[in-house]
């Protein structure tokens, strides 16, 4: 294993150790997603029993809930992992080690995938047992749709991390709030068409909005949502590149301003 891979793995392991004995960290991965699925899942079942005339009401809602959580977790996998080191005053130890900024980002991406797999496995299994909802009926379409949500989550997570690095713990709230800012225009639980015109314009530039439109195409027609996936992927390529550039630029500014040692104070 190269020294570079060894360092990336080391930083990933540092975070995985946390889950061995930290109840709050386990709650972050399992408790909130499960609670979301229980509450909103049963609300959906209730509404569908009240005679809603929307076909596949439960499917739309539970599917959207699970997919949205994937975006949210992939973003949190990055920003909250970064915050862990701010909280434990360990950030300087990391940045005076040979781990580079690029390796650091790769470790965070790897971590977010691991957390996502854990959370999604629990949610998908629970959705099957409680609501007989099988997300895999989406077939092959599921892979590009999920991949696009993960990449958008990464872009948001990297930008959030860069902002916390720049503005310190005052910006910590962004780690929890930023992804939710995109939810209304991501048309998670309703089609883009119901949005007022100005929000529809914004939604066109949100990868998640195309993913959720794609999800509805799959559920209603079973067809592969090529147009939606191409749009989401195109936007994601631009956003992930911009987010990485933004991180490097911020990292440079933080070093120029001597703020790296002050993050977490």
């Amino acid at each position, binding site marked *: 294993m190269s020294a570079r891979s060894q*360092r990336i793995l080391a*930083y990933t392991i*540092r975070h995985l*150790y946390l889950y061995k004995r930290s109840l709050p960290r386990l709650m972050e991965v399992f408790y909130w997603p499960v609670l979301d699925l229980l509450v909103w899942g049963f609300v959906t079942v209730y509404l569908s029993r009240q005679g809603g005339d929307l076909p596949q009401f439960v499917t739309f809602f539970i599917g959207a809930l699970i997919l949205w959580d994937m975006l949210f977790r992939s973003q949190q996998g990055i920003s909250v992992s970064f915050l*862990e080191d701010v909280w*434990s005053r360990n950030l*300087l130890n990391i*940045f005076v080690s040979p781990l580079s900024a690029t390796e650091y980002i790769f470790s965070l991406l790897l971590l977010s995938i691991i957390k996502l797999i854990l959370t999604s496995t629990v949610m998908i299994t629970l959705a099957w047992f409680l609501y007989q909802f099988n997300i895999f009926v989406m077939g092959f379409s599921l892979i590009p749709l999920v991949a696009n949500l993960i990449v958008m989550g990464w872009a948001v997570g990297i930008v959030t991390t860069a902002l916390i690095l720049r503005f310190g713990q005052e910006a910590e709230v962004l780690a929890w709030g930023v992804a939710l800012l995109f939810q209304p225009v991501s048309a998670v639980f309703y089609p883009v068409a119901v949005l007022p015109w100005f929000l529809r314009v914004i939604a066109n530039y949100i990868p998640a909005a195309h993913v959720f439109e794609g999800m509805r195409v799959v559920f209603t027609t079973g067809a592969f949502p090529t147009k939606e996936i191409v749009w989401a992927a195109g936007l994601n390529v631009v956003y992930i590149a911009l987010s990485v550039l933004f991180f490097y630029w911020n990292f440079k500014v933080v070093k120029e301003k001597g703020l*790296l040692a002050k993050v977490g104070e």
Partner: protein
Amino acid sequence: MNVLVEVKGLTKAFNGFKLAVDDISFEMYEGEILGLIGPNGAGKTTTLQMLLGLTTPTAGEIRIFGLDIGSAREEILRQVNFSSSYISLPFSLTVEENLTVFSRLYNVKEHKKRIRELLSIFEILDIKDTPTRRLSSGQITRVCLCKALLNNPRILFLDEPTASLDPDIADKTRTLLRAIKKERGLSILYTSHNMKEMEEMCDRLIFMDKGRIIAAGDPESIMKKFGGRSLEEVFIKIARPGQ
């Protein structure tokens, strides 16, 4: 003696005008303990941060092992380490887990053996399975020092390493650092506000005030230069120029 650190015309201005470090130059030699002292705001921490690549200098040059810190960051950081009483380690991880993570970050061979060896040296082998959050501040400081020695560094940067230790452990730590220095030719850049400690530990001192070096040399020559019987007296003279 080999020059390990070479600093030339190092300057740091924040927000374009506030000079935290003002055109300083010095060298650090292999096997020496070099102390950075000065009142708060003298520029010690900024200098240390620039040496570690955490802060970008406005002007000047830093060469460590003959390499430029800006372009050879990874190669330099593999061979140095840092500890400060103001930083900590992840609280939920045990002592051994924390040291394992850093062993891997520094690519330490036979890391389990190395961790046990260091924990024994610092007399904290019994807490290896204890989560860091349950340790006293003195124990955390010693674990941080173990972390700082994991990679057998050629240069150790220590920022007030004994600030949270009781006099007994602080004395043991100083004795240990001197022994490691003697045994392995380790070079240490040391900062502390404890002037007695600096007098005892350092081969050479750099006295900074308002971003500039106002004196450099062995502790005795600095005391002589400022007419003080102890470093503390010299420090107070400089900090209160009107009295």
